[in-house]
């Protein structure tokens, strides 16, 4: 399993040595998603709680007449909930779940910028010494003193689906 997931992380860079991403903050960490996946960035919208659903995808919202799930990545990473601020945004991404293109909203504390990451500065997550599940992370990219997390959506959403 972990072998397969490693492979997925390799393919993130398959387009070339560089990757265009959208960076955003959740609970003080900076994350990045491939820019091509991003459909839209929304202000907070009224959400509808789905009783009985997993907390990770606990609600749905109306995105231009479509009902899409709202995912909270911080729960996958076991982070503490943060208060909604004036900077809070929802990033709508398109993602294949079981070969079906699905729109998913992702709750973020702040959206930063679209930037280009270089493969040379990326590394695989260390398998020990991390408080997060390593298979949820495609890779870490160093930037200055800090690093950006590229989450492995495939692993995150399939876990939430199976479990």
């Amino acid at each position, binding site marked *: 399993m972990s072998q397969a997931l490693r492979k997925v992380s390799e393919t993130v860079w398959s387009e070339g040595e560089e990757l265009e991403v959208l960076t955003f903050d959740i609970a003080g960490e900076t994350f990045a998603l491939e820019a091509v996946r991003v459909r839209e960035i929304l202000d907070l919208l*009224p959400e*509808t709680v*789905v*009783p009985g659903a997993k907390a990770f995808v606990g609600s*749905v919202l109306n995105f231009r*007449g479509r009902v899409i799930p709202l995912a909270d990545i911080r729960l996958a990473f076991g982070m503490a909930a943060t208060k909604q601020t004036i900077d809070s945004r929802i990033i709508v991404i398109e993602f294949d*779940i079981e070969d079906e293109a699905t729109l998913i909203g992702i709750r973020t504390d702040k959206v930063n910028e679209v930037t280009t990451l270089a493969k040379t500065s990326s590394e695989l997550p260390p398998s020990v010494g991390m408080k997060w599940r390593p298979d949820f992370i495609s890779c870490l990219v160093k930037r200055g003193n800090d690093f950006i997390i590229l989450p492995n959506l495939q692993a995150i959403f399939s876990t939430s*689906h199976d479990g």
Partner: protein
Amino acid sequence: MSFPDPIQVFKTEAAELLEQIETGLLDLTYDLTNKDQIDAVFRGLHTLKGSGAMFGFDALAAFTHHCETAFDRVRKGEVTATEELISVVLEAKDHMRALVENPNAEHDAVSTRLLADLHRAVEALDKAGAAPAKASGPKETLWRIRFGLPRNAMANGTNPLGLLDELRDLGPCKIRADLSDIPALDALTPSDLYISWHVEVTTAQPKSMIEDVFIFVMDEMQIEITAIDAGKAAAPAPVPAPQKAAAPAAAAPVVEAPKPVVQETASVPAVRDTSAAAASATDPKQNRAAESVRVPAERLDELMDRVGELVIAQSRLRQLAGRNADIQLRAVSEDIERLSGELRDTMMVLRMVPVATLFGRFRRLVHDLARETGKVIELITEGETTEVDKTVIERLADPLVHLVRNSVDHGLETPEMRRAAGKQEAGKVILSARQASGEVIITIKDDGRGIDRDRVRAKAESSGLIQPNAALTDQEIFQLIFQPGFSTAQTVTNLSGRGVGMDVVKRTIDALRGTIEVASFPGEGSEISLRIPLTLAIIEGLLVRVGGGRYVIPLSAVEECLELSLEEDLRSRGRSFISLRDSLVPFIRLRDLFHTGTKPDPYQKVVVISTGSERVGLVVDQIIGDHQTVIKSMSKLHHDVATFSGATILGDGSVALILDVVHLVAAGQQQEAQMRIAG
């Protein structure tokens, strides 16, 4: 907008042609000499070959050519069609489909085998019936032919000179062009055809051969073919004065050409299909096809989405206008409401397709089943014009295949057994569809042996589905056959008996929010009815509030609404039942189920919902009212949440979840069962 991929266009066209060929072939099995159907099959093959070659499907074109050649001979009356030939060509048709779908795969082996079969079939024909048409003697007749083509014939690719050449091939011709319709130069359109022709041809060929010259243009042209006495043929027949086309467009006389009737004694079980016989008047069908427009299904779905959004936006507008005293705004809002309502209704009709498209494919299935099982089967279809939402039709196909197979395999007896039981040798399978109050009811009925209750029970007991000697009603026993892994067939046949199938049927019908009813009488047959809502896209719903959330209950499932009296509310702490006209109905507090964590409203309401005979009450905080619900499916991330079947968007733009009635009723029944055990 991008142009459609020509290969894709060809594939769509080919699929239709193949269907047309199949229909023709199947119709031919009832009447091997049916000229219309022979022509239809030939035309289909011919067009398929032509367009196949044009789009680079060379293997397809080459293969189809052989079938076309065989049918050409049938068409010309040189040989008579046989069951064997039709079976071979049916099989060949399947192969053509493979060639269309997957032109690059390795098909040579199958092609060679089928061509050998075809060859044998044709050879057998030659031996069986050297064309009696020829045997009737080479008596030459003089035929007078008058024909006029439609104005746009040349623009459509018809070359009149080619037709004349073909007539010349039949025998010596005298051709005179009638130029009387040519207008003055200023009124003349160069690409139009104004000329009609008078032809006298002396030939030994039958009239049908002359008609064949015009086979591809016959539908639109005016033609008159008359035989002139052979004796007069010598005399120079005076060409009559050019008559104005007095005969209306439908002048083409349908002539029963003397056909060689060498009926093969059917050695394979015959399949009769009454609907096919009734439908053999193909002309109205063709007319309908000409008037329709082909639209990719996705575009329809897109349009439906837009209409759904419009309906939502409109209800927001109505709310706004309701709060506003502006008369003009209200008037506009009312107009928009009416228009969007009409648009929605039209849209729903657009998505409706007659079930005939669904039933059509069962003729082939039954034909094949008859061959495989050696049973004689008569497939009767009723109510084919009943219209159902396109998506429903698509999703019904698989369950119906299972049910029809089941009827044939388990239900119908062999001809010997049927004779012994004093029944007609041919077993009937009746597929019917009808509409009743927002639902479509599809019934699969057979006159076979019926469901063996004891065997079902024994089987269920041995596989642990039920307790031995459990008291079950007939309906409960019948429902057992829909359990996964259940099959009473003692031998696994090619068709059924593996126990997969019926549970698939059940799951699909559940997903369509439908129900299954089974009736069966020993020795008389069984009847399975599927009740399915007409559409999946929009339903009438009852909007309720539970805690802070709003939910939609499909109105079709709602039986009644009542207030939960305080004493019942208090008493029900221990047991959740209300008594409703002397019967106890279990109820579920949605507030507890949804963990709302809010204080209940002082007067709780109960919405009683039912699926058929089972009822359950849902306790809600407030009943808001009815609501036109545009159903949006939930993403796969929420497929584990069984309580909801979908979501909808309310007038204020927020999302409300739609309660899954089947699931809630089951949950209520389960609760009831637990209560019973607890005493």
